[in-house]
């Protein structure tokens, strides 16, 4: 190993979702980091983008971050790595980012560099063959094993890569890597492990650095943090002048958006954080030691899949009459019954979210029997065909107007409409796959590509 430590610069925990704040990014760049990297994916955004193969992030914001990162990486001559391209890490999102990298390189006349990328989509057909061959696609988080029916209902599946595509592409000489779907932490762990640092510290570095400034305080998103790994520890330093990485903020982040703060699972093993020790090193830096990596006996890759439920329309209504507020369940019951009378019991879905009662929390709401003085009701109609979804939503919304409440004083309309229409929304999807599949080779689902980008030296001189 040529250096005693390796320093990682992370400006964004979900590249594209909101643009990076450039002040702290360039303060970080000025410290000469060894790698510049960010994850760009999340399953927080719901199943729609994966199912429909779109991004939830605007293209301009994706390009903004890629441009700052690419120019800094080329100027410093250090690798740039992006994981889970374009929110979902599907093949089209990888191609989108690869295209942006080419375009940015051309626009800035960048010197030639090697761009590595890999795909993560798993064809339904290959999963079906595996299942027919007797392989069990095991459910996560209490889900049953994947059934042929659920597979059939799925539009698109991605596999979560481990470190392997990243280390392999770096071995082949990649200067810039655009990854398909993968675990957040592996973009950091890959280069660290490849450089000879312990697996446990390498994965831990990724675990606490992948959301950038969410591991610092006071709370601020999209600010740059530097993570430094040595053979003995990981140190996190906030780059924003007003932010600090403290024991509380770093430890607090280790448990962020995970069911359990002690264990992190990746393709190839599990990071055990039960013995982690946190120490404040200076005002802006916290040091962590003690994580343990437990290699997996079986290689099981996590799969994410989304399937379309139907076309979707949305309607809105309000209620102010206290008697109607108190009897809102009967109003909705009437409207539902009218939809059933016209369209039958099945072939569509109809949902009511009653804001002011339990619109945010549904059945988890402890105060659902103490509604506010006015209610806002959002109605969703979903059906395979747009025309039916529209009719379900329109009838489900408008029939609240005609609800028959015996004691109501107002007899000219039971609800208020801010708009006398229903609006077409994006199609409804659901997560059909949250499962794991056995693989023999950690690279087998992730085809690798390496291309030359930028201008050869001769052309630049010309």
């Amino acid at each position, binding site marked *: 190993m040529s250096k005693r430590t390796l320093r990682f610069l992370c400006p964004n925990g979900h590249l594209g979702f909101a643009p990076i704040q450039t002040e702290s990014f360039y303060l970080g760049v000025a410290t000469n980091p060894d790698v510049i990297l960010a994850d760009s994916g999340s399953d927080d*955004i719901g199943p729609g983008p994966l199912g429909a193969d779109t991004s939830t992030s605007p293209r301009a914001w994706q390009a903004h971050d890629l441009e700052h990162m690419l120019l800094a990486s080329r100027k410093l001559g250090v690798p740039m790595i992006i994981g889970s391209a374009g929110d979902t890490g599907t093949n089209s999102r990888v191609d989108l980012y690869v295209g942006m990298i080419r375009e940015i390189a051309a626009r800035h006349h960048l010197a030639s560099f090697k761009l590595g990328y890999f795909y993560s989509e798993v064809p339904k057909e290959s999963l079906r063959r595996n299942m027919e061959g007797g392989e069990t696609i095991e459910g996560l988080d209490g889900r049953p094993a994947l059934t042929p029916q659920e597979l059939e209902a799925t539009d698109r599946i991605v596999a979560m890569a481990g470190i392997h595509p990243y280390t392999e592409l770096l071995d082949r000489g990649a200067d810039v890597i655009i990854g398909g779907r993968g675990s957040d932490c592996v973009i950091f762990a890959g280069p660290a492990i490849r450089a000879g640092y312990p697996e446990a510290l390498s994965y831990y570095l990724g675990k606490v650095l992948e959301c950038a400034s969410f591991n610092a305080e006071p709370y601020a998103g999209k600010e740059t943090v530097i993570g430094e790994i040595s053979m003995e520890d990981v140190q996190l330093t906030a780059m924003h002048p007003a932010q600090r990485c403290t024991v509380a903020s770093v430890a607090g982040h280790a448990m962020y958006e*995970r069911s359990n703060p002690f264990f992190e699972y990746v393709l190839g093993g599990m990071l055990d954080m039960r013995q982690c020790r946190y120490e404040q090193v200076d005002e802006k830096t916290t040091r962590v030691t003690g994580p343990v990596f437990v290699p997996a006996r079986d290689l099981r890759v996590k799969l994410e899949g989304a399937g379309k439920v139907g076309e979707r329309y949305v309607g809105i209504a309000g209620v102010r009459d206290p008697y109607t507020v108190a009897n809102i369940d009967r109003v909705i019951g009437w409207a539902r019954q009218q939809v059933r009378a016209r369209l039958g019991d099945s072939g569509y879905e109809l949902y009511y979210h009653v804001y002011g009662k339990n619109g945010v929390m549904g059945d988890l709401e402890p105060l659902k029997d103490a509604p506010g003085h006015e209610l806002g009701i959002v109605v969703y109609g979903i059906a395979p065909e747009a025309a039916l979804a529209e009719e379900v939503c329109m009838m489900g919304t408008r029939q609240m107007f005609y609800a028959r409440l015996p004691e109501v004083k107002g007899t000219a309309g039971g609800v208020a409409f801010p708009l006398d229409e229903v609006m077409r929304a994006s199609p409804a999807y*659901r997560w059909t796959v949250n499962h794991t599949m056995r693989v023999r080779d950690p690279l087998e689902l992730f085809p690798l590509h390496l291309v030359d980008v930028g201008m050869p030296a001769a052309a630049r001189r010309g």
Partner: protein
Amino acid sequence: MAKLSTLAKTVRSKNAGVDKITFDVIFRDRETYERVKQSGAITRASVARLYRIPETRISDFVAFDPACAIKFTIYRDRPSGSPGDTDIFGAQQYAPLLDIEVPLK
């Protein structure tokens, strides 16, 4: 007695994958954290009662000493963003925790 909202620095909820929501209650100092932990006001049973769910819907419940935090995770009644879901990020499910009354000796 004191409300949890006055004792905790952070009370938050967030998706933990697509099938679960996780709740973090983080304290500013170790002393407050230990007092709340010892009080028995926040337990697997008490949060199950508060959210009116069976304890089997709580997948994890841990005290996380390094962060002075109590953390628990519940299974969603439907995956995030599915038809009928009201909170795609699971970000607004923590509010009932704020009003938990903690008996302090």
